[in-house]
């Protein structure tokens, strides 16, 4: 059975469909000319060689269309789950592709951040049907979209707070420029590039919002290159201030010795080898120290944390070490990305995308959820069981100084927080395969297997 992808309905030239769990891109007759130009001009090969565009193979048509493409499968993440540098790299990739496309007589007809995904450690463009034949004299039709999807969120994250990237979840077309302009500090008006691309852009939009007149505009290729150069410089110059958070240095600030930390690594490694998982989702991954234990064993490790600085650090490590299978993402487990967009299904929820991973890793996390966020053990266990078939989880006792810290300024209402209750609640969803205590600590690591119904 063929079903249309829930996010693929805006383009009239091509559509993404799912058939037998495989993703295909149907190219309609209306897109024949641009598609042929993409494939025959050398642009496709060049972008593939630079690993900037997702490769595809042409397969037999199972619908009456011009071509059926089968692209390389990727794990889908969304801009509101990315840290600042991930969004910035995605923006620079989009601009670079547009510059290269111009050299081959083509242009991007949209600059949607959702057209970029992370594959083998790098951002990659996944929308093969986004290229149109470039007509000199035309301005870049995707300019406004680029500013809303990339430039404005990056500026707001850098000038105000990285957490404001969450505005993209409620504004799927990108951050409205008038909102960005209001959010940015007055000092940003002194930045010529932000002044023009955000503030004056927002004012111009407002001023011309009722205008439906035909006007005559000439936009040369040189001017297009100048615009792209200006946008590139603007994006490159938007930088995050160096700031530390409570969790950013977590692994340097543990309350146990190096020996205990090493023992914890060994236990997780031994448990991991018993599973040999192809897919891992690491909740509360911090900078990905434990995610990296699986980088030789697994195809994909989704390394998620609530803390932006930790995710930023994690992404910096993946880039530095050229790691191809670790994907750092921002995730608040108490409010994970929901199904949003048209009919509440255009962008799927985080748990829909990671469900049935082979291994869930939840180290030094349960006490934060149970005590820090008042979530009962049974609810935590249920959530973890929806994410994966196996679980490596750490129980941290109340005697541990990290838990004492959590309870230091509040009334201890957590009489049910005990290792017995932990095992009983998790036992409702998992079979406990093995457990090992970390010497000289109040911590125990469990290997569990999901109970299949």
């Amino acid at each position: 059975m063929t079903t249309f992808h829930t996010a693929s309905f805006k383009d009239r030239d091509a559509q993404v469909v799912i058939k037998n769990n495989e993703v295909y891109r149907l190219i309609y007759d209306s897109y024949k000319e641009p598609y042929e130009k993409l494939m025959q001009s050398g642009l496709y090969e060049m972008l593939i060689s630079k690993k900037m565009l997702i490769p595809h193979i042409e397969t037999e048509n199972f619908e009456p269309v011009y071509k059926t493409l089968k692209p390389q499968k990727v794990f889908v993440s969304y801009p509101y789950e990315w840290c600042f540098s991930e969004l910035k790299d995605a923006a620079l990739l989009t601009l670079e592709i547009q510059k290269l496309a111009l050299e081959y007589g083509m242009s991007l007809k949209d600059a949607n951040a959702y057209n970029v995904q992370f594959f083998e450690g790098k951002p990659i463009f996944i929308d093969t049907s986004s290229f149109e034949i470039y007509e000199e004299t035309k301005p870049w039709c995707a300019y406004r979209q680029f500013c809303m999807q990339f430039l404005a969120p990056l500026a707001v994250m850098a000038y105000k707070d990285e957490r404001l990237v969450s505005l993209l979840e409620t504004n799927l077309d990108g951050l409205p420029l008038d909102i960005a302009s209001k959010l940015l500090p007055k000092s940003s008006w002194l930045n010529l590039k932000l002044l023009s691309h955000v503030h004056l852009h927002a004012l111009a939009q407002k001023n011309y919002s009722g205008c439906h007149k035909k006007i005559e505009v000439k936009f040369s290729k040189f001017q297009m290159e100048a615009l792209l150069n200006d946008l590139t410089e603007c994006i490159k110059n938007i930088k995050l201030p160096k700031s530390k958070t409570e969790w950013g240095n977590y692994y340097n600030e543990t309350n146990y010795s190096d020996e205990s930390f090493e023992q914890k690594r060994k236990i997780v490694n031994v448990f991991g080898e018993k599973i040999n998982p192809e897919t891992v989702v690491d909740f509360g991954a911090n900078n990905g120290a434990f995610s990296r234990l699986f980088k030789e064993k697994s195809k994909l490790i989704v390394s998620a944390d609530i803390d932006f600085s930790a995710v930023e650090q994690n992404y910096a490590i993946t880039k530095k070490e050229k790691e191809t299978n670790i994907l750092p993402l921002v995730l608040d487990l108490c409010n994970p990305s929901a199904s949003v967009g048209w009919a509440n299904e255009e962008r799927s929820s985080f748990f829909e995308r990671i469900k049935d991973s082979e291994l869930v890793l939840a180290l030094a996390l349960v006490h934060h959820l149970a005590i820090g966020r008042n979530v009962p053990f049974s609810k935590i266990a249920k959530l973890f069981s929806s994410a994966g078939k196996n679980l490596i989880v750490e129980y941290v006792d109340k005697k541990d100084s990290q838990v004492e810290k959590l309870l230091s300024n509040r009334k201890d209402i957590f009489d049910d927080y005990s290792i017995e209750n932990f095992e009983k609640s998790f036992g409702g969803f998992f079979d406990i395969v093995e457990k090992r205590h970390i010497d000289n600590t109040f911590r125990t690591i469990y290997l569990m297997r999901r109970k299949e119904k």
Partner: protein
Amino acid sequence: MSKNIFKYSFIFFIPIFLLPQQAFAYLDPGTGSMIIQTLIAVFGSIGYAGILFRKKIKSFFERFRKTK
């Protein structure tokens, strides 16, 4: 503050009427984006031409140094 800036930004918008060649384009509610994009490109072209010129000069001297 923003109102004042926009009030006097007409100077910034003047070149739109001085563009030498013209082509037709239907303008939708994104008219403002088209206009601002054109203006940025017009002004940006000057700086961009400078960058390209500087690169050419640099590569010329580098070539000259290599042949020496």
